[in-house]
Protein backbone atom coordinates (compact mmCIF):
# COMPACT_ATOMS: atom_id res chain seq x y z
CA UNK A 1 0.00 0.00 0.00
CA UNK A 2 1.32 3.42 -0.95
CA UNK A 3 1.95 5.27 2.29
CA UNK A 4 0.95 8.60 0.79
CA UNK A 5 -2.27 7.20 -0.59
CA UNK A 6 -3.07 5.75 2.80
CA UNK A 7 -2.26 9.04 4.44
CA UNK A 8 -4.41 10.94 1.93
CA UNK A 9 -7.32 8.64 2.64
CA UNK A 10 -7.02 9.07 6.37
CA UNK A 11 -9.41 11.66 7.80
CA UNK A 12 -10.55 12.33 4.26
CA UNK A 13 -14.10 12.27 5.64
CA UNK A 14 -13.51 15.64 7.26
CA UNK A 15 -15.56 17.76 4.89
CA UNK A 16 -14.76 21.02 3.21
CA UNK A 17 -17.27 23.46 4.71
CA UNK A 18 -19.96 25.10 2.61
CA UNK A 19 -21.65 28.49 2.67
CA UNK A 20 -23.14 27.81 6.10
CA UNK A 21 -19.58 28.12 7.39
CA UNK A 22 -18.10 30.53 4.87
CA UNK A 23 -20.68 33.29 5.29
CA UNK A 24 -20.44 33.73 9.08
CA UNK A 25 -16.69 33.17 9.10
CA UNK A 26 -16.19 35.74 6.37
CA UNK A 27 -18.27 38.16 8.39
CA UNK A 28 -16.15 37.43 11.45
CA UNK A 29 -12.97 38.08 9.50
CA UNK A 30 -14.29 41.36 8.13
CA UNK A 31 -15.25 42.46 11.63
CA UNK A 32 -11.79 41.64 12.89
CA UNK A 33 -10.18 43.44 9.95
CA UNK A 34 -12.24 46.54 10.53
CA UNK A 35 -11.71 46.44 14.25
CA UNK A 36 -8.01 46.42 13.73
CA UNK A 37 -8.17 49.36 11.43
CA UNK A 38 -10.29 51.16 13.94
CA UNK A 39 -7.99 50.58 16.89
CA UNK A 40 -4.72 51.06 15.09
CA UNK A 41 -5.67 53.20 12.17
CA UNK A 42 -6.21 56.83 11.65
CA UNK A 43 -4.97 58.68 14.65
CA UNK A 44 -5.74 62.14 13.46
CA UNK A 45 -9.50 62.27 13.40
CA UNK A 46 -10.12 65.39 11.48
CA UNK A 47 -13.54 66.84 10.93
CA UNK A 48 -15.64 65.48 8.14
CA UNK A 49 -16.33 62.02 6.90
CA UNK A 50 -13.33 60.42 8.55
CA UNK A 51 -14.50 60.60 12.13
CA UNK A 52 -17.89 59.24 11.25
CA UNK A 53 -16.44 56.43 9.19
CA UNK A 54 -14.36 55.31 12.13
CA UNK A 55 -17.29 55.46 14.50
CA UNK A 56 -19.48 53.47 12.18
CA UNK A 57 -17.19 50.57 11.58
CA UNK A 58 -19.51 48.30 13.53
CA UNK A 59 -22.77 50.05 12.80
CA UNK A 60 -22.74 49.35 9.10
CA UNK A 61 -22.11 45.67 9.68
CA UNK A 62 -25.46 45.16 11.27
CA UNK A 63 -28.87 45.29 9.68
CA UNK A 64 -30.30 48.73 10.12
CA UNK A 65 -33.22 48.85 12.53
CA UNK A 66 -36.43 49.61 10.66
CA UNK A 67 -38.31 51.68 13.18
CA UNK A 68 -36.78 51.86 16.55
CA UNK A 69 -33.74 53.94 17.12
CA UNK A 70 -31.02 52.84 19.47
CA UNK A 71 -31.45 54.08 23.01
CA UNK A 72 -31.00 57.78 23.07
CA UNK A 73 -28.88 58.75 25.98
CA UNK A 74 -30.15 61.75 27.84
CA UNK A 75 -27.56 64.40 28.16
CA UNK A 76 -26.97 65.67 31.66
CA UNK A 77 -27.04 69.45 32.09
CA UNK A 78 -23.81 70.87 30.89
CA UNK A 79 -21.94 73.87 32.14
CA UNK A 80 -19.81 75.91 29.78
CA UNK A 81 -16.57 77.05 31.39
CA UNK A 82 -14.21 79.87 30.54
CA UNK A 83 -11.75 77.98 28.41
CA UNK A 84 -8.94 80.50 28.95
CA UNK A 85 -9.10 80.03 32.70
CA UNK A 86 -9.37 76.25 32.52
CA UNK A 87 -6.50 75.92 30.06
CA UNK A 88 -4.25 78.19 32.14
CA UNK A 89 -4.94 76.02 35.17
CA UNK A 90 -4.36 72.86 33.13
CA UNK A 91 -1.01 74.24 31.96
CA UNK A 92 -0.04 74.92 35.53
CA UNK A 93 -0.98 71.44 36.77
CA UNK A 94 0.66 69.68 33.82
CA UNK A 95 3.85 71.66 34.27
CA UNK A 96 4.13 70.41 37.82
CA UNK A 97 4.16 66.72 36.88
CA UNK A 98 7.21 64.55 37.27
CA UNK A 99 8.96 63.69 34.07
CA UNK A 100 8.84 60.09 32.91
CA UNK A 101 11.72 57.88 31.86
CA UNK A 102 12.27 57.24 28.20
CA UNK A 103 11.33 53.59 27.51
CA UNK A 104 13.61 51.09 25.79
CA UNK A 105 12.78 50.10 22.19
CA UNK A 106 11.98 46.57 23.40
CA UNK A 107 9.54 47.68 26.08
CA UNK A 108 5.85 47.77 25.33
CA UNK A 109 3.19 50.44 25.44
CA UNK A 110 0.15 48.88 27.06
CA UNK A 111 -3.27 50.48 26.62
CA UNK A 112 -6.71 49.47 27.79
CA UNK A 113 -9.50 51.30 26.02
CA UNK A 114 -13.25 51.17 26.39
CA UNK A 115 -15.44 51.72 23.36
CA UNK A 116 -19.18 52.23 23.46
CA UNK A 117 -20.54 52.34 19.92
CA UNK A 118 -23.65 54.40 19.20
CA UNK A 119 -25.88 51.38 18.64
CA UNK A 120 -24.27 48.92 21.04
CA UNK A 121 -25.70 47.87 24.36
CA UNK A 122 -22.39 46.96 25.82
CA UNK A 123 -19.07 48.66 26.21
CA UNK A 124 -16.19 46.85 24.64
CA UNK A 125 -12.78 46.65 26.26
CA UNK A 126 -9.75 46.60 24.00
CA UNK A 127 -6.39 45.73 25.46
CA UNK A 128 -3.33 46.19 23.35
CA UNK A 129 0.41 46.01 23.62
CA UNK A 130 2.48 47.84 21.05
CA UNK A 131 6.21 47.43 21.21
CA UNK A 132 7.84 50.79 21.82
CA UNK A 133 9.56 50.69 18.44
CA UNK A 134 6.20 49.86 16.83
CA UNK A 135 7.47 46.67 15.21
CA UNK A 136 5.20 44.22 17.03
CA UNK A 137 1.72 44.25 18.51
CA UNK A 138 -0.02 41.90 20.92
CA UNK A 139 -3.52 41.46 22.25
CA UNK A 140 -5.72 38.83 23.84
CA UNK A 141 -7.66 36.76 21.35
CA UNK A 142 -11.23 35.55 21.69
CA UNK A 143 -10.13 32.53 23.75
CA UNK A 144 -8.34 34.72 26.22
CA UNK A 145 -4.92 33.68 24.96
CA UNK A 146 -2.28 36.32 24.49
CA UNK A 147 -1.51 36.56 20.83
CA UNK A 148 1.72 38.27 19.89
CA UNK A 149 1.76 39.30 16.26
CA UNK A 150 4.60 38.80 13.83
CA UNK A 151 7.44 41.28 13.74
CA UNK A 152 6.95 43.96 11.15
CA UNK A 153 4.96 47.06 10.59
CA UNK A 154 1.42 46.33 11.84
CA UNK A 155 -0.10 49.35 10.17
CA UNK A 156 -2.27 49.44 7.12
CA UNK A 157 -0.95 51.26 4.09
CA UNK A 158 -1.95 54.90 4.24
CA UNK A 159 -2.21 54.87 8.03
CA UNK A 160 -0.81 58.03 9.59
CA UNK A 161 -0.24 56.49 13.00
CA UNK A 162 3.23 56.49 14.50
CA UNK A 163 5.03 54.10 16.80
CA UNK A 164 5.25 55.12 20.48
CA UNK A 165 8.93 55.81 19.86
CA UNK A 166 8.19 58.02 16.87
CA UNK A 167 5.55 59.90 18.84
CA UNK A 168 8.03 60.54 21.61
CA UNK A 169 10.73 61.63 19.19
CA UNK A 170 8.24 64.02 17.61
CA UNK A 171 7.25 65.35 21.00
CA UNK A 172 10.80 65.85 22.17
CA UNK A 173 11.52 67.94 19.07
CA UNK A 174 8.76 70.42 19.89
CA UNK A 175 9.40 73.84 21.41
CA UNK A 176 7.80 74.70 24.74
CA UNK A 177 6.89 78.23 23.76
CA UNK A 178 3.17 78.03 22.99
CA UNK A 179 3.27 80.24 19.88
CA UNK A 180 6.23 78.41 18.39
CA UNK A 181 4.69 75.10 19.42
CA UNK A 182 1.46 75.79 17.59
CA UNK A 183 3.38 77.00 14.54
CA UNK A 184 5.53 73.89 14.49
CA UNK A 185 2.59 71.54 14.92
CA UNK A 186 0.55 73.12 12.16
CA UNK A 187 3.54 73.06 9.81
CA UNK A 188 4.30 69.37 10.43
CA UNK A 189 4.18 67.74 6.97
CA UNK A 190 3.27 64.36 8.50
CA UNK A 191 -0.12 65.61 9.67
CA UNK A 192 -0.68 67.64 6.54
CA UNK A 193 -0.18 64.52 4.47
CA UNK A 194 -2.41 62.65 6.92
CA UNK A 195 -3.99 59.25 6.53
CA UNK A 196 -5.29 58.18 3.20
CA UNK A 197 -8.07 55.72 2.57
CA UNK A 198 -9.84 54.72 -0.55
CA UNK A 199 -13.23 56.30 -0.95
CA UNK A 200 -12.47 59.04 1.52
CA UNK A 201 -11.58 62.25 -0.26
CA UNK A 202 -8.36 63.65 1.10
CA UNK A 203 -8.47 67.18 2.27
CA UNK A 204 -6.26 69.16 4.54
CA UNK A 205 -8.16 71.02 7.25
CA UNK A 206 -7.26 74.65 7.98
CA UNK A 207 -4.20 75.13 10.19
CA UNK A 208 -6.12 76.05 13.36
CA UNK A 209 -8.37 73.00 13.14
CA UNK A 210 -5.45 70.75 12.36
CA UNK A 211 -3.47 72.24 15.23
CA UNK A 212 -6.35 71.53 17.59
CA UNK A 213 -6.64 67.90 16.53
CA UNK A 214 -2.92 67.24 16.66
CA UNK A 215 -2.67 68.72 20.17
CA UNK A 216 -5.58 66.53 21.28
CA UNK A 217 -3.88 63.53 19.73
CA UNK A 218 -0.64 64.31 21.55
CA UNK A 219 -2.46 64.87 24.84
CA UNK A 220 -4.06 61.44 24.47
CA UNK A 221 -0.56 59.97 24.46
CA UNK A 222 0.37 61.19 27.89
CA UNK A 223 2.84 59.23 29.95
CA UNK A 224 6.10 60.07 28.31
CA UNK A 225 5.36 63.68 27.43
CA UNK A 226 7.78 66.10 29.10
CA UNK A 227 5.80 68.15 31.67
CA UNK A 228 6.89 71.49 30.26
CA UNK A 229 5.73 70.43 26.84
CA UNK A 230 2.36 69.24 28.11
CA UNK A 231 1.97 72.56 29.84
CA UNK A 232 2.79 74.34 26.57
CA UNK A 233 0.18 72.19 24.77
CA UNK A 234 -2.55 73.65 26.95
CA UNK A 235 -1.24 77.18 26.44
CA UNK A 236 -1.13 76.59 22.69
CA UNK A 237 -4.70 75.30 22.81
CA UNK A 238 -5.73 78.60 24.36
CA UNK A 239 -4.42 80.36 21.24
CA UNK A 240 -6.81 78.49 18.94
CA UNK A 241 -10.08 80.35 18.37
CA UNK A 242 -13.23 78.39 19.11
CA UNK A 243 -11.93 76.02 21.81
CA UNK A 244 -14.86 75.39 24.17
CA UNK A 245 -14.88 73.55 27.46
CA UNK A 246 -17.86 72.08 29.28
CA UNK A 247 -18.13 70.46 32.65
CA UNK A 248 -19.65 67.06 33.36
CA UNK A 249 -18.96 65.36 30.03
CA UNK A 250 -18.74 61.60 30.46
CA UNK A 251 -16.37 59.18 28.80
CA UNK A 252 -17.08 55.49 28.12
CA UNK A 253 -16.03 54.61 31.66
CA UNK A 254 -18.78 56.90 32.97
CA UNK A 255 -16.29 59.37 34.38
CA UNK A 256 -17.54 62.97 34.29
CA UNK A 257 -14.76 65.28 33.18
CA UNK A 258 -14.01 68.39 31.22
CA UNK A 259 -15.28 68.17 27.66
CA UNK A 260 -13.10 70.13 25.25
CA UNK A 261 -14.43 70.74 21.75
CA UNK A 262 -13.77 73.01 18.85
CA UNK A 263 -16.48 75.29 17.53
CA UNK A 264 -16.05 75.96 13.82
CA UNK A 265 -18.11 77.54 11.06
CA UNK A 266 -18.87 74.13 9.69
CA UNK A 267 -22.33 72.74 10.31
CA UNK A 268 -21.69 69.22 11.53
CA UNK A 269 -24.19 66.62 12.68
CA UNK A 270 -22.09 65.67 15.67
CA UNK A 271 -19.85 67.23 18.26
CA UNK A 272 -16.73 65.49 19.42
CA UNK A 273 -15.51 66.15 22.92
CA UNK A 274 -12.14 65.22 24.27
CA UNK A 275 -12.74 64.39 27.91
CA UNK A 276 -10.07 65.42 30.42
CA UNK A 277 -9.70 64.53 34.08
CA UNK A 278 -11.01 67.66 35.90
CA UNK A 279 -8.30 67.39 38.55
CA UNK A 280 -5.15 66.28 36.73
CA UNK A 281 -6.18 67.46 33.22
CA UNK A 282 -5.01 64.17 31.82
CA UNK A 283 -6.71 62.69 28.79
CA UNK A 284 -9.61 60.40 29.71
CA UNK A 285 -11.38 59.68 26.44
CA UNK A 286 -13.80 61.04 23.88
CA UNK A 287 -17.51 61.57 23.59
CA UNK A 288 -19.20 62.22 20.28
CA UNK A 289 -22.78 63.39 20.49
CA UNK A 290 -25.09 63.62 17.48
CA UNK A 291 -26.88 66.96 17.48
CA UNK A 292 -29.13 65.99 14.59
CA UNK A 293 -29.93 62.88 12.55
CA UNK A 294 -27.13 61.71 10.31
CA UNK A 295 -27.95 59.66 7.22
CA UNK A 296 -25.49 57.31 5.61
CA UNK A 297 -26.53 55.08 2.77
CA UNK A 298 -30.26 54.88 3.44
CA UNK A 299 -32.12 58.13 3.12
CA UNK A 300 -35.22 57.25 5.14
CA UNK A 301 -33.72 55.93 8.37
CA UNK A 302 -30.90 57.84 10.01
CA UNK A 303 -27.86 55.70 10.68
CA UNK A 304 -27.19 57.91 13.67
CA UNK A 305 -30.28 59.55 15.10
CA UNK A 306 -30.04 62.79 16.99
CA UNK A 307 -28.91 62.07 20.54
CA UNK A 308 -26.70 59.10 19.62
CA UNK A 309 -23.51 58.91 21.60
CA UNK A 310 -20.21 57.28 20.81
CA UNK A 311 -17.78 57.30 23.66
CA UNK A 312 -14.34 55.92 24.38
CA UNK A 313 -12.16 55.85 27.46
CA UNK A 314 -8.48 55.27 27.93
CA UNK A 315 -8.38 53.50 31.27
CA UNK A 316 -4.75 52.40 31.22
CA UNK A 317 -1.71 53.61 29.30
CA UNK A 318 1.64 52.55 30.61
CA UNK A 319 5.04 51.16 29.65
CA UNK A 320 5.65 47.51 30.56
CA UNK A 321 8.47 45.04 29.95
CA UNK A 322 6.52 42.23 28.31
CA UNK A 323 3.32 41.84 26.31
CA UNK A 324 0.66 40.57 28.70
CA UNK A 325 1.97 42.74 31.56
CA UNK A 326 -0.44 45.36 32.73
CA UNK A 327 1.97 47.45 34.72
Amino acid sequence: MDDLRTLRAWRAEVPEPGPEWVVPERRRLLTRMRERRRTLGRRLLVVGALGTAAALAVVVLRPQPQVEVPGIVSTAPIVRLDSGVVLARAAEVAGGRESAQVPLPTQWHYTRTLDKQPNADTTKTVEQWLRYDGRQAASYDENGDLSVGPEGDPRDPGDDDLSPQQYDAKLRALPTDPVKLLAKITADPHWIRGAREKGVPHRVPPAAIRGYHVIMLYLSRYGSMPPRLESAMFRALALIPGVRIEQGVRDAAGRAGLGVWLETDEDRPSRRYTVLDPVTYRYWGTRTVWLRDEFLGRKDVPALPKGSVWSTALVASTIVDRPGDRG
Partner: protein
Amino acid sequence: MIAEDLGSIDDAELIRRSRRDPEAFAGLFDRHAPAMRRYVARRLGPSLADDVVSDTFLTAFRRRDRYDSGHPDARPWLYGIAARLISRHRRVEIRFYRALVRTGVDEIAEPYAERVDDRVAAEQAGLAAALAGLSAGDREVLLMVAWADMTYEDVARALGIPLGTVRSRLHRARARTRLALGGSNPVTTREESLDG
Protein backbone atom coordinates in the same frame (compact mmCIF):
# COMPACT_ATOMS: atom_id res chain seq x y z
CA MET B 1 -17.70 44.45 -4.54
CA ILE B 2 -18.69 40.88 -3.71
CA ALA B 3 -20.94 40.82 -6.74
CA GLU B 4 -18.03 41.44 -9.05
CA ASP B 5 -16.77 38.37 -10.84
CA LEU B 6 -13.55 37.58 -9.06
CA GLY B 7 -13.07 34.31 -10.88
CA SER B 8 -10.97 35.85 -13.59
CA ILE B 9 -8.41 37.59 -11.41
CA ASP B 10 -5.58 35.83 -9.62
CA ASP B 11 -4.72 36.00 -5.93
CA ALA B 12 -1.89 38.47 -6.44
CA GLU B 13 -4.27 40.89 -8.13
CA LEU B 14 -6.86 40.40 -5.40
CA ILE B 15 -4.26 41.19 -2.74
CA ARG B 16 -3.10 44.20 -4.71
CA ARG B 17 -6.67 45.51 -4.84
CA SER B 18 -7.11 44.94 -1.12
CA ARG B 19 -4.34 47.42 -0.41
CA ARG B 20 -6.61 50.16 -1.64
CA ASP B 21 -9.90 48.46 -0.85
CA PRO B 22 -9.32 46.38 2.30
CA GLU B 23 -12.58 44.48 2.02
CA ALA B 24 -11.53 43.01 -1.31
CA PHE B 25 -9.47 40.71 0.88
CA ALA B 26 -12.65 38.78 1.66
CA GLY B 27 -12.41 37.45 -1.90
CA LEU B 28 -9.24 35.61 -0.92
CA PHE B 29 -11.05 34.14 2.05
CA ASP B 30 -13.93 32.88 -0.09
CA ARG B 31 -11.45 31.29 -2.44
CA HIS B 32 -9.12 29.53 -0.01
CA ALA B 33 -10.66 29.35 3.44
CA PRO B 34 -12.91 26.28 2.92
CA ALA B 35 -10.03 24.03 1.82
CA MET B 36 -7.79 25.43 4.53
CA ARG B 37 -10.48 24.83 7.14
CA ARG B 38 -10.62 21.20 6.07
CA TYR B 39 -6.84 20.91 6.16
CA VAL B 40 -6.52 22.42 9.63
CA ALA B 41 -9.49 20.48 10.96
CA ARG B 42 -7.81 17.26 9.86
CA ARG B 43 -4.91 18.18 12.10
CA LEU B 44 -6.44 20.03 15.04
CA GLY B 45 -10.16 19.29 15.02
CA PRO B 46 -12.95 21.65 13.99
CA SER B 47 -13.12 24.15 16.82
CA LEU B 48 -9.46 25.11 16.82
CA ALA B 49 -9.52 25.06 13.03
CA ASP B 50 -12.01 27.93 12.90
CA ASP B 51 -9.72 30.12 14.93
CA VAL B 52 -6.57 29.12 13.11
CA VAL B 53 -8.15 29.87 9.73
CA SER B 54 -9.52 33.20 10.92
CA ASP B 55 -6.17 34.16 12.46
CA THR B 56 -4.37 33.09 9.30
CA PHE B 57 -6.40 35.41 7.12
CA LEU B 58 -6.21 38.23 9.63
CA THR B 59 -2.42 37.88 9.76
CA ALA B 60 -2.30 37.69 5.98
CA PHE B 61 -4.44 40.81 5.78
CA ARG B 62 -1.99 42.68 7.98
CA ARG B 63 0.94 41.62 5.85
CA ARG B 64 -0.75 42.02 2.51
CA ASP B 65 1.41 44.97 1.51
CA ARG B 66 4.43 42.68 1.65
CA TYR B 67 2.96 40.01 -0.59
CA ASP B 68 5.25 39.19 -3.50
CA SER B 69 2.97 39.83 -6.44
CA GLY B 70 5.20 37.67 -8.64
CA HIS B 71 3.25 34.70 -7.26
CA PRO B 72 -0.26 34.55 -8.69
CA ASP B 73 -1.26 31.73 -6.29
CA ALA B 74 -1.42 32.83 -2.64
CA ARG B 75 -1.88 29.33 -1.25
CA PRO B 76 1.75 28.74 -0.25
CA TRP B 77 1.83 32.12 1.49
CA LEU B 78 -1.42 31.41 3.34
CA TYR B 79 -0.46 27.88 4.31
CA GLY B 80 2.91 29.12 5.51
CA ILE B 81 1.13 31.50 7.88
CA ALA B 82 -1.23 28.72 8.91
CA ALA B 83 1.73 26.41 9.58
CA ARG B 84 3.11 28.80 12.15
CA LEU B 85 -0.27 29.14 13.82
CA ILE B 86 -0.82 25.37 13.79
CA SER B 87 2.58 24.89 15.40
CA ARG B 88 1.33 26.76 18.45
CA HIS B 89 -1.08 23.88 18.97
CA ARG B 90 1.45 21.12 18.49
CA ARG B 91 0.48 19.42 21.73
CA VAL B 92 -3.17 19.28 20.72
CA GLU B 93 -2.28 17.77 17.37
CA ILE B 94 -0.07 15.12 18.93
CA ARG B 95 -2.63 14.31 21.59
CA PHE B 96 -5.11 13.38 18.85
CA TYR B 97 -2.55 11.08 17.22
CA ARG B 98 -1.62 9.43 20.50
CA ALA B 99 -5.25 9.02 21.53
CA LEU B 100 -5.89 7.11 18.31
CA VAL B 101 -2.89 4.87 18.93
CA ARG B 102 -4.05 4.22 22.48
CA THR B 103 -7.78 3.80 22.05
CA GLY B 104 -8.20 2.92 18.39
CA VAL B 105 -10.68 5.77 18.01
CA ASP B 106 -9.83 8.77 15.88
CA GLU B 107 -11.60 11.67 17.51
CA ILE B 108 -11.15 13.85 14.45
CA ALA B 109 -12.55 11.50 11.79
CA GLU B 110 -15.02 9.76 14.06
CA PRO B 111 -17.90 12.27 13.82
CA TYR B 112 -17.91 11.91 10.01
CA ALA B 113 -16.63 8.40 9.42
CA GLU B 114 -18.35 5.18 8.65
CA ARG B 115 -17.05 2.36 10.78
CA VAL B 116 -13.63 1.44 9.50
CA ASP B 117 -12.55 -2.19 9.23
CA ASP B 118 -9.77 -3.57 11.34
CA ARG B 119 -7.13 -3.44 8.66
CA VAL B 120 -7.77 0.24 7.98
CA ALA B 121 -7.92 0.96 11.69
CA ALA B 122 -4.53 -0.65 12.16
CA GLU B 123 -3.08 1.37 9.28
CA GLN B 124 -4.42 4.58 10.71
CA ALA B 125 -3.03 3.82 14.16
CA GLY B 126 0.32 3.19 12.49
CA LEU B 127 0.18 6.50 10.65
CA ALA B 128 -0.84 8.31 13.81
CA ALA B 129 2.08 6.80 15.71
CA ALA B 130 4.44 7.80 12.90
CA LEU B 131 3.09 11.36 12.72
CA ALA B 132 3.33 11.76 16.48
CA GLY B 133 6.97 10.70 16.30
CA LEU B 134 8.02 13.01 13.48
CA SER B 135 9.81 16.26 14.05
CA ALA B 136 7.53 19.27 13.58
CA GLY B 137 9.32 20.29 10.42
CA ASP B 138 9.10 16.84 8.82
CA ARG B 139 5.43 16.50 9.73
CA GLU B 140 4.64 19.89 8.27
CA VAL B 141 6.17 18.99 4.91
CA LEU B 142 4.51 15.58 4.80
CA LEU B 143 1.04 16.91 5.58
CA MET B 144 1.32 19.86 3.23
CA VAL B 145 2.06 17.41 0.43
CA ALA B 146 -0.48 14.77 1.45
CA TRP B 147 -3.37 16.86 2.76
CA ALA B 148 -2.95 20.27 1.17
CA ASP B 149 -1.90 18.94 -2.26
CA MET B 150 1.10 21.18 -2.42
CA THR B 151 3.98 20.74 -4.84
CA TYR B 152 7.54 20.71 -3.51
CA GLU B 153 7.99 24.26 -4.77
CA ASP B 154 4.84 25.35 -2.94
CA VAL B 155 6.02 23.79 0.29
CA ALA B 156 9.44 25.40 -0.05
CA ARG B 157 7.83 28.78 -0.52
CA ALA B 158 5.32 28.25 2.27
CA LEU B 159 7.91 27.31 4.83
CA GLY B 160 10.69 29.48 3.49
CA ILE B 161 13.07 26.53 3.11
CA PRO B 162 15.16 25.32 0.14
CA LEU B 163 13.71 22.77 -2.23
CA GLY B 164 16.39 20.29 -1.19
CA THR B 165 15.26 20.54 2.41
CA VAL B 166 11.68 19.81 1.36
CA ARG B 167 12.86 16.66 -0.41
CA SER B 168 14.99 15.47 2.48
CA ARG B 169 12.28 16.17 5.06
CA LEU B 170 9.71 14.38 2.97
CA HIS B 171 12.06 11.48 2.41
CA ARG B 172 12.62 11.13 6.15
CA ALA B 173 8.95 11.48 7.00
CA ARG B 174 7.90 8.91 4.42
CA ALA B 175 10.50 6.45 5.63
CA ARG B 176 8.79 6.65 9.02
CA THR B 177 5.27 6.28 7.72
CA ARG B 178 6.24 3.34 5.50
CA LEU B 179 7.86 1.67 8.44
CA ALA B 180 4.74 2.24 10.49
CA LEU B 181 2.60 0.75 7.75
CA GLY B 182 4.69 -2.36 7.97
CA GLY B 183 6.88 -2.66 4.96
CA SER B 184 7.98 -0.80 1.91
CA ASN B 185 6.67 -0.62 -1.58
CA PRO B 186 9.30 0.30 -4.13
CA VAL B 187 6.81 2.32 -6.14
CA THR B 188 6.38 4.76 -3.32
CA THR B 189 9.96 5.85 -3.39
CA ARG B 190 9.41 7.61 -6.68
CA GLU B 191 9.05 11.22 -5.75
CA GLU B 192 7.82 12.32 -9.15
CA SER B 193 4.51 10.62 -8.53
CA LEU B 194 3.59 13.33 -6.08
CA ASP B 195 5.34 16.28 -7.48
CA GLY B 196 2.49 18.08 -9.09
